[in-house]
């Protein structure tokens, strides 16, 4: 199968496809760590990493569907992810919020 036929079959170009597969696989690895993780820090790190990966998934989706405006949504996700991580870390350190 040559390059053009592969592109037509998958509906997107090869680098985007490879990036998508790697992203989803890394999300799966993080999910395993979040479920199995023995310590609290493993789980916090897994959550934060999945947040970062979802930012990348939204950005990748924008380029896959030829709508780079999705980058704005990805930025909003990054901000929200930061907020939740701060609250979780505060709870993990002090056992209280606020």
């Amino acid at each position, binding site marked *: 199968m040559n390059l053009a036929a592969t592109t037509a*079959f*998958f*509906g*997107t170009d090869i680098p*985007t*496809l490879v990036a*998508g597969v790697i992203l*989803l696989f890394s*999300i*799966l690895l993080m*999910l395993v760590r*979040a*479920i199995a*993780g023995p310590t*609290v820090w493993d*789980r*916090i790190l*897994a*959550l934060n990493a*999945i*947040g970062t990966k*979802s930012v990348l*998934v*939204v950005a990748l*989706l924008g380029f*896959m*569907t030829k709508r780079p405006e*999705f980058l704005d*949504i990805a930025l*909003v*996700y990054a901000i*929200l*992810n930061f*907020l*939740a991580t701060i*609250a*979780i870390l505060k*709870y*993990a350190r002090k*056992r*209280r*919020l606020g």
Partner: protein
Amino acid sequence: MSPTIMLDVVLLALVIIAGIAAIEVRNLFASVMLASIYSLLMACFWTTMDAVDVAYTEAAVGAGISTILLMGALVLTGETEIVRRAVHWPALGACMLVGALLVYGTLDMPKFGDANAPAHVHPIYAGFTKQDIRKDPSGKSHDDNVAAEKAAAHTEAEAHAETAHGHDDYFHGHVPNQVTSVIVAYRAFDTLFETAVIFTAGMGLIVLLRGRRGNPLKGGLL
């Protein structure tokens, strides 16, 4: 095969894993983490479905505020679930049955993005554009009007043309899609029922959270 379909399938599989793990895990802190992961993946899925506003809400409420609220609940309670629950088979069966019925119900729905879905082509405004009930001088009942409209039924193509481009003072036939019509041209109805939903939720919260001092059946609502 469309790449977004593949993305959808993998994302939903991950969502299912996260959801089941969030229920099954005994450490409540881990459960909160997994619920947050569930929301993040769901937000990605909504984005692939082109529902960007829903995705925003899911990310802000599901992954942001809900996580913080659940953390606040963890402050007040313990961190591990002590009682191991047994599976309640009749309840599981009832859930499966309802789920199967809902999936069966979706078989009748039009395909995703179908331009010929009933919501787009149903000629509901055709009669209104012909003769507005409020302006009707003959004093006939509403049913008579409907019958007359049905008698004067034109071909579906004509009706659709009128639906799409009705021109009168009341926004009837403003847009062909009925849902969009309610959201855009009949904004007041949308807001009215949204307000009703939020009011009901607020009343429920007040009733739940007003405390349990004394006889709950005595005294006022608050």
